[in-house]
């Protein structure tokens, strides 16, 4: 390159260096102008959170795939994938109107397919708010896949996932978040320990009880056999993804950035409860069975996350530590209890989401603080069990509604398309039986357990 060309280049680069900040100045001025509307900033926040909550789908997918056997992996992933598709459809056509449309205190009745609704909901555009809520709905639906894993027919699952998203989840959601009777009573569930997790967990319990245990899970004398998960690295990736996405799940439920103090509090509480859940579950399983079982420790972190979901906005960080730690203990004992009752829940969906969802809902009444936005002070501040009582009513009525509703839905599916695959198909694996393809083509997998 000649000296002249070099000089030209240098001049051009210098000109750029001078010009870029000036250009950037005008851009940032425009950005700050458009953000000067509070709604713009809040929309960005809610959408980022919605994208994070969507990312829970692969989290659930990896956890469930890792905790089951290789021969059913393609099947569980197809269920995880399609249930978000079905939930999106069901929640658009019917679910949103039932949950957030005007109606009575039991269910909404306006806004089918989002027609005739105000363009702004809760301070953000309707479409952004819908996406955030649809991702929640998908999370509730996908919890059940794990509880009913390794033996549920695929067509039955498709029908189930549409119905829970269109009818069951939105009704409970309306009671709590859509101005229904629980909301009017002062029931508080900030991000969904009841609405999402208890609903999903109880639906999983009803389903797995109706399906009966997997072939070989319980010996003739009733003792539980080990059916080990086939991929612990996938399962732990899934747990990390869920933990990560939970920051969107909880902190996004503020629906607003505000001055940042609330989302900051929610985020730290979310993290502390998960951490203590992991530690407590590891310690419990270590003490009871002699080894720090990773799969149980990871269940413990998820249990802590589920438990902090309802109280995350209303409690101090020290309380989040206690809430998470107790959840971690509960989940280990919950898994043991189900084994004792001969209920086969392959990934621990009910202990994690059901039992710890109830625990988290009650925690609002125990550790909640009026100065952090709750209607009444919790028990430890006021000595008054009022809020615990309200929380209990909310939790019990949600459980009853889901148990009856899902009981009827699963029964109808069983009578029409059939809920469970044949014994031979179960033994050969649902990958071949339901989908005609294997998850690990070219690998030799022992299909004998």
């Amino acid at each position, binding site marked *: 390159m000649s000296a002249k060309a070099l000089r030209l280049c240098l001049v051009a680069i210098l000109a750029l260096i001078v010009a870029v900040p000036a250009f950037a100045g005008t851009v940032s001025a425009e950005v700050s102008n458009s953000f000067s509307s509070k709604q713009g900033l809040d929309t960005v926040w809610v959408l980022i959170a919605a994208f994070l909550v969507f990312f829970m789908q692969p989290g659930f997918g990896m956890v469930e795939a890792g905790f089951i056997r290789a021969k059913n992996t393609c099947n569980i992933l197809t269920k995880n994938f399609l249930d978000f598709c079905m939930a999106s459809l069901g929640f658009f056509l019917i679910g949103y109107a039932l949950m957030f449309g005007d109606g009575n205190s039991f269910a909404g009745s306006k806004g089918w397919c989002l027609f005739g609704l105000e363009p702004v909901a809760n301070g953000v555009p309707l479409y952004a708010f819908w996406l955030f809520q649809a991702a929640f709905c998908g999370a509730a639906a996908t919890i059940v896949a794990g509880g009913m894993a390794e033996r549920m027919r695929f067509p039955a699952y498709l029908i189930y996932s549409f119905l829970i998203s269109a009818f069951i989840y939105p009704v409970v959601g309306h009671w709590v978040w859509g101005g229904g009777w629980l909301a009017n009573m002062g029931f508080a569930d900030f991000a969904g320990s009841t609405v999402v997790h208890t609903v999903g967990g109880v639906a999983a319990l009803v389903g797995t009880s109706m399906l009966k245990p997997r072939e*070989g899970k319980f010996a003739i004398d009733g003792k539980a056999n080990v059916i080990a998960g086939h991929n612990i690295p996938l399962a732990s990736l899934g747990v990390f993804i869920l933990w990560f996405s939970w920051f969107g799940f909880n902190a996004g439920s503020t629906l607003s950035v505000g001055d940042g103090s609330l989302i900051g509090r929610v985020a730290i509480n979310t993290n502390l409860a998960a951490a203590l859940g992991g530690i407590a579950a590891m310690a419990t399983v270590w003490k009871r069975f002699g080894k720090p079982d990773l799969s149980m420790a990871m269940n413990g972190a998820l249990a802590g996350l589920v438990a902090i979901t309802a109280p995350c906005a209303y409690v101090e960080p020290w309380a989040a530590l206690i809430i998470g730690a107790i959840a971690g203990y509960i989940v280990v004992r919950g898994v043991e209890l189900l084994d004792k009752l001969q209920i086969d829940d392959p990934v621990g969906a009910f202990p994690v989401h059901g039992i710890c969802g109830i625990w988290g809902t009650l925690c609002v009444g125990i550790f909640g603080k009026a100065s952090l936005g709750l209607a009444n002070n919790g028990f430890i501040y006021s000595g008054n069990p009022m809020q615990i009582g309200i929380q209990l009513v909310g939790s019990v009525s949600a459980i009853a509604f889901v148990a009856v509703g899902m009981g009827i839905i699963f029964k109808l599916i069983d009578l029409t398309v059939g809920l469970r695959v044949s014994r*031979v198909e179960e*033994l*050969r694996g649902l990958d*071949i039986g339901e989908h*005609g*393809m*294997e998850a690990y*083509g070219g690998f*030799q997998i*022992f*299909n*004998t*357990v």
Partner: protein
Amino acid sequence: MKLIIAYIQPYKLKDVKQALYKAQVYKVSVTNALGCGEQQGYEESYRGIKFEVNLLKKVRLEIAVNENFVEKTIDAIIEGAKTGQIGDGKIFVVDLPECVRIRTGERGMKAIG
């Protein structure tokens, strides 16, 4: 001494193990195997293309027994593995000239134990 080799359906392994245990045969080696026989293959599809899988997954059992256990073992394998469908598998019985237990150096019938 005989070596009993059996090829069975993978999902029947649990039943065969139980039947062997009932017949007091506590020793067995198991390996994955692929093979074809009278049972036709089955169809899989991948991204819209159907293809026939004709090397089927089987499980191979090897059990070394003394003469007085041969019939018991065969009966137990049949009891566990038989469904009456094509594909249940086959049992081969071959003479076993020698057997050595590595730990003690014992040979023959004692080594089979």
